[in-house]
């Protein structure tokens, strides 16, 4: 069975502090994994993707994620949060011609 679990529905950080958004997955086969961001009233934008190459994946806007097969995790990190990072983030798994979405994590960035 394919599934994605985002461990935190809300994360709040102060501007300039690190961001950690957690994602665990379950997959029968080696999956492709993605992080998407959704700003209010906007479509989803791809942040980064893992497709069985390097396990540390760098994305746009300073985000990166590390694929850890032993932990079945794909956590998203950023060293220093910016106000413009406030949005909802989705961890996504691709397998068998379908994309499976996590329930989303809303990131709040305080001044």
């Amino acid at each position: 069975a394919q599934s994605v679990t985002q461990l935190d529905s809300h994360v709040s950080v102060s501007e300039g502090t690190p961001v950690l958004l957690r994602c665990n997955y379950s997959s029968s086969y080696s999956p492709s994994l993605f992080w998407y961001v959704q700003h209010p009233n906007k479509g989803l934008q791809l942040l980064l993707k893992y497709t069985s190459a390097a396990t540390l994946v760098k994305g746009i806007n300073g985000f990166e994620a590390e694929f850890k097969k032993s932990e079945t995790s794909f956590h998203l990190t950023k060293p220093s949060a910016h106000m413009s990072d406030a949005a909802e983030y989705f961890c996504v798994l691709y397998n068998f011609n379908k994309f499976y979405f996590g329930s989303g994590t809303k990131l709040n960035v305080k001044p």
Partner: protein
Amino acid sequence: EADIYQTPRYLVIGTGKKITLECSQTMGHDKMYWYQQDPGMELHLIHYSYGVNSTEKGDLSSESTVSRIRTEHFPLTLESARPSHTSQYLCASGLGGAEAFFGQGTRLTVV
């Protein structure tokens, strides 16, 4: 910016009306998807297509129907709208495991 477009962006319509949500992409992608997203909730796949004349139901049961007569066009139709259909509908296209490109969504309200 991805070349995938959804119209209308917002729609308020009365119960019992027939509606069609449009989705078009200019990237030549074979795979297209419709997701339903209730406020604050995760995305659920309701329909997908592998190519022209191919349509499949997704993981979440939906009373809507889709068609794929042309590669670039994947409209979703509700024959008789009900308040329970009030939601956001997101269309996506992709080349499989590489990435999915999302439209900006249609916010449907049935009154």
